[in-house]
């Protein structure tokens, strides 16, 4: 069992390494993708600079906390899209029968499928996240929590994408549902949760887990709370288990296809 997990991790890292090597073949495009993503994210902060020049508090967040909120949002997004890029287009793989090659390999189909590609611009998101962390003020516990929540948030975001994409096994093309759901997490995760109330707030901590990915981590990094940290980790484990359950239940309904496919 332990050897199998070790071998799976080894293959996953080789797969990510090879995908990165492919992206780096075109040096200019690769660097442009990274740099432009940092600039793109930076442009959003400008609006917050303007807002905080007029107000000192938005939804209970200081300017430093908003920077941390953006940093965590960018790093979790970057982590998920760099390591698990294909989870965000998994619906297409299910609908168009692109899982065949993973099904004939003695490895976990879901992990092999979602780690078969990387998104270079996601490196820009990760770098931007670190910059925001530095700007918001560095402490060792904060850095460690930031790393922990980047990983847990990235995995939760990926699990959410996998659950939505797995609906394709039952309902055919669920790509637009998955795109909308994934987009909503990203959008909501960059606004202070204090501006949301009632049902919308409940939704952000349940159906759209922006609260688990971003709001609670920012709160814990501001004022450490061991119970909230454990809650985030428990939900991450639960979401991951749910993603595997959904995907493998659905896989029994996979119908493949006869499309000509190249792994490029």
């Amino acid at each position, binding site marked *: 069992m332990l050897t199998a997990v070790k071998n799976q991790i080894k293959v996953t890292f080789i797969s990510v390494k090879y995908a990165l090597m492919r992206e780096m073949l075109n040096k200019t495009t690769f660097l442009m993708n990274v740099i432009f993503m940092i600039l793109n994210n930076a442009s959003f902060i400008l609006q917050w600079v303007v807002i905080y020049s007029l107000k000192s508090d938005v939804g209970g967040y200081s300017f430093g906390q908003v920077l941390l909120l953006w940093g965590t949002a960018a790093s979790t997004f970057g982590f998920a899209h760099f390591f698990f890029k294909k989870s965000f287009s998994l619906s297409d793989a299910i609908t168009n029968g692109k899982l*065949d*090659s993973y099904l004939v390999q003695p490895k976990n189909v879901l992990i092999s499928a979602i780690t078969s590609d990387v998104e270079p611009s996601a490196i820009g998101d990760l770098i931007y996240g670190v910059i925001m962390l530095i700007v918001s003020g560095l402490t060792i516990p904060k850095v460690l929590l930031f790393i922990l929540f980047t990983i847990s948030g990235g995995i939760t975001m990926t699990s959410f994408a996998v659950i939505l994409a797995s609906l394709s096994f039952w309902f055919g093309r669920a790509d637009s549902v998955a795109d909308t759901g994934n987009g909503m997490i990203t959008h909501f995760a960059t606004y202070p949760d204090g501006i949301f109330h009632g049902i919308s707030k409940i939704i952000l901590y349940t159906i759209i887990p922006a609260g688990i990915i971003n709001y609670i981590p920012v709160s814990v990094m501001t004022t450490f709370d061991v119970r909230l940290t454990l809650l985030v980790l428990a939900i991450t484990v639960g979401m991951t288990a749910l993603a595997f359950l959904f995907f493998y239940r659905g896989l029994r309904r996979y*119908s*493949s296809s006869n499309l000509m496919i*190249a*792994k*490029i």
Partner: protein
Amino acid sequence: MAVIEVKNLKKNFRVKLKEKGLKGSLKSMVKASYRTVEAVKGVNFEVQEGEVIAFIGPNGAGKSTTIKMLTGILYPDGGDIRVLGIDPTKERKKLAYEIGTVFGQKEQLWMHLTPYDNFKFFGAIYDIPDKEAEKRIEEIKELFELQEIMNTPVRNLSLGQRIRCEIAASLIHQPKVLFLDEPTIGLDPVVKDSIRKLIKKMNKEYHTTVFLTSHDVSDIEKLCKRVIIINNGELVMDDSMENLKYHHLNKKIIEIKLAKMADFSNFDGIKVLKQKDTNFKLEIDLKKKSIADVLKLIHSDDLIDMNISNTPLEEIISEIYRDGVKV
């Protein structure tokens, strides 16, 4: 020993029905209707260790669906499968260590990597220790004559070289059964021939059981000793290549060149396939006329040249596809 056992295998697909136009789309949104397509209808067969068998049929016959169920890609709706004693639906990963697959229409290699890097990656997938993987890569490199292309990115290889690498990659873990789905699709005759030689060599050297689907009759004729034909989801024939030819060769083709004009159009059992001046190509139905009967119609002094051949296997198979021969 049977390495593949298939009993009463079934697979259905649910296809959404839609009337034409926008109205039809709106109607199907309100109330969708479906049709069940029986892709595989209770198929039974066995494949013995070391056999090279052809599993053929026209498009949509159910051969790819069957091969996908045998390799664990698709879940069957009924029946029982054992490949090397393993049930693909329950122990997909265990089976994957024992079988190799090549889908001619689906690349499994990373295009930007060299064959060497790809083989290393496949070695890792099958948990082969680095030293052992290096040894097997060396072996495969020799067997498939890949020395010159080992360090060229796959995207820069010709289609034939790429297919050679695909087959080589599928052998890195020394599978006991190899599933080849249209391995020679799109290749020129020379490359096709070299791929066939490789499959033969591999079967001989490693004693690998080969399960082949192909629309190319030459693949079947040159590689396989047994043929299973599937049509409309049912087996229509499961026999040795020898028997296939023997039982279905009730027609002969005679090509003759005569010194004088002759007329063969009014004889029962003789069909004029082609005629140019005094050159004839005739198809003889041996149930109605023997070769001797035909020769009696020709004066020996008029005969300049003659060639008697069997009906091409392609025609025999097409006839079986059309008319079906129940096993």
